[in-house]
């Protein structure tokens, strides 16, 4: 186990280097520059800009500088947000995105597991059909349609909830973004839980548990859930990657100052240090999170050994 974790930790660094290099390569291969576009710049000023940002050096020097700053964990200054370093922006936006993402995922887990388990226990009942149809609907409505529709109904027509903006935590502003973001995961987790539970409930060890006279509650909660939730646990890894694109959309719809919103703006502004910083940060987060999921998986499923 220890060796497994160590190996995975060691592989993290080269992977981050690869992702960052790829991103940097894409940015540099693209025609144009961050200062070009809006209006023509006199040659002398352009020369100054190129000197200031080291663009006059050969590409490998620039690449080396960039990678060096990434490895030191200091991503430099943003090109567009004057006087703010990338690290400051990361520190400022991360709590927003993390709150949104974690909160949504927790609610999705709660509702999804509950609905999935109930559906599996009452298989082929109306409850089962209704929750699975609802889950399919949840999978099919894009979050950028769901979000505005919720806003239209719950805030612009009924005036129950604020339609946008960040209000800190906890606040009513969080309700709609969390609902929007968690919809798909709820649906997905409910489906995973249902099929996992159905499989487990037919297993021999559940029959044994029933045969030795355990109450139905003990059978479900102590024996079946542990096995039935394995697909949900293994979904948590990829879910994080989806969650990131999900937060991008939700942050844009609700005008939240999160990582995703800044990432899109950075791309539109060609703000290279900020793009590199966010990509590197997210890659590390995903890799570490995946490792955590794998460890948790081995802990829950005793059949797995690393």
């Amino acid at each position, binding site marked *: 186990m220890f060796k497994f974790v160590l190996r995975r930790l060691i592989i993290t660094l080269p992977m981050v280097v690869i992702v960052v290099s790829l991103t940097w390569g894409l940015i540099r291969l*693209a025609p144009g520059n961050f200062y070009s576009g809006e209006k023509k710049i006199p040659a002398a000023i352009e020369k100054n800009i190129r000197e200031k940002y080291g663009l006059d050096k050969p590409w490998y020097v620039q690449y080396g500088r960039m990678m060096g700053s990434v490895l030191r964990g200091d991503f430099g200054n943003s090109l567009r947000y004057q006087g703010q370093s990338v690290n400051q922006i990361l520190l400022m936006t991360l709590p927003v995105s993390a709150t949104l993402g974690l909160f949504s995922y927790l609610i999705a887990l709660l509702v999804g597991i509950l609905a999935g388990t109930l559906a599996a226990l009452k298989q082929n009942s109306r409850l089962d059909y209704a929750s699975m149809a609802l889950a*399919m609907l949840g999978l099919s409505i894009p979050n950028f349609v769901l979000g505005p529709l919720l806003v239209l109904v719950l805030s612009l027509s009924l005036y129950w909830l604020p339609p946008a903006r960040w209000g800190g935590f906890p606040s009513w502003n969080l309700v709609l973004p969390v609902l929007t973001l968690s919809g798909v995961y709820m649906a997905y987790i409910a489906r995973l839980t249902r099929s996992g539970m159905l499989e487990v409930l037919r297993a021999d060890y559940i029959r044994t548990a029933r045969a030795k006279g355990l109450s139905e509650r003990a059978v479900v909660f102590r024996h079946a859930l542990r096995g039935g939730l394995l697909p949900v646990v293994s979904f948590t890894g990829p879910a994080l990657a989806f969650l990131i694109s999900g937060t991008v959309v939700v942050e844009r719809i609700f005008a939240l100052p999160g990582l995703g919103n800044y990432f899109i703006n950075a*791309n539109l502004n060609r703000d290279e240090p900020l793009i590199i910083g966010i990509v590197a940060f997210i890659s590390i987060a995903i890799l570490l999170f995946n490792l955590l999921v794998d460890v948790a998986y081995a802990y829950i499923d005793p059949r797995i050994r690393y």
Partner: protein
Amino acid sequence: MNEERSATDRAQTTGQPALTPLGTPPEAPRDPDIIHTSPELAVGEGDVRSAEMRDDTIVGTSLWKDAWRRLLKNKLAVFGLVVVAIIIVVSLVGPYIIKATTGYTYDFIPPDSKLVKSFPPFQAPDGSFSGAHPMGTDNAGRDILARVLLGGRISLMVGIISTIVSLLIGISYGATSGYLGGKVDDVMMRIVDVLYSLPYMMIVIVLLAFFGNRSPLGQLFLLFAALGAVSWLTMARIVRGQVMSLKNQEFVQAARATGVTTPKIIFRHLVPNALGPVIVYATLTVPSVMLQEAFLSFLGLGVQAPLASWGSLASEGIQNIAIFPWQLIFPGVTMALTLFSLNFLGDGLRDALDPQMRKF
């Protein structure tokens, strides 16, 4: 049950000896639909018996006929199939009908400046009822129905073509890895694992932000390639698993013994036998790619004006959600309905093609 019908029965309907997997040289012409696609057939057990029983009067059904019948029994899947078919036909034919009846096209902006604004569905400029714009018009006075139909064409096209791209990459990669096995397989699958845990959507965003916006058509091709290139991973894993379970069977050994080259074994013998799960997964890839395209278009990085996809239409609609909600509702609901149907169809296909995988 149909599922239990033996391989021999199925082979008989083809009208040729059921002996194919072992006996026929790979170059021999065969019915690609039936012989190749059934994994059970490849096992080769009972081949000799079936050759004797060939003239029997029992009429069997092929794997595909079986699957088709099971699919038709699944009401939700039939619903999905019908809705998807209707949407495809309507988005292909509809624009011509609109042009013929009302004269509107997706990019027609009325020359009268009083008409260049958003009207609600079924409403004429003077406020009376009119059938000219069943979905209303957008800010430029363009007919939303015509734009939703164009959006349907583009969204479905992106979904299907990107899925084909991902199929091509995934099948070649997975089949090669699974067939070669050993060290090569280890390395190739590690690469897939590594790619799985990358924030590829971020890289796609960077790619589109920096290389996009050349021309509407160029943007479309970029989308096909980018979305196809990021959605082949699961496909590769599925194909690899299938190939690994097939590669030690007699028909592959026979092919190897007769000196068939490795690429030929992989693509002529193994891949066709692994098609069932691949088709199922491909059906489910289409809606997920369409969602990703919509996501990118929503961010302004996908389909460019004057073309439109459901995602880009929804994105325009969101700006005006408070005043002109129909601009979001029509493309959004059409897209949700399509994805809903495609998902049901995919689920139904999975149950029909692979009864063992059916989730009870």
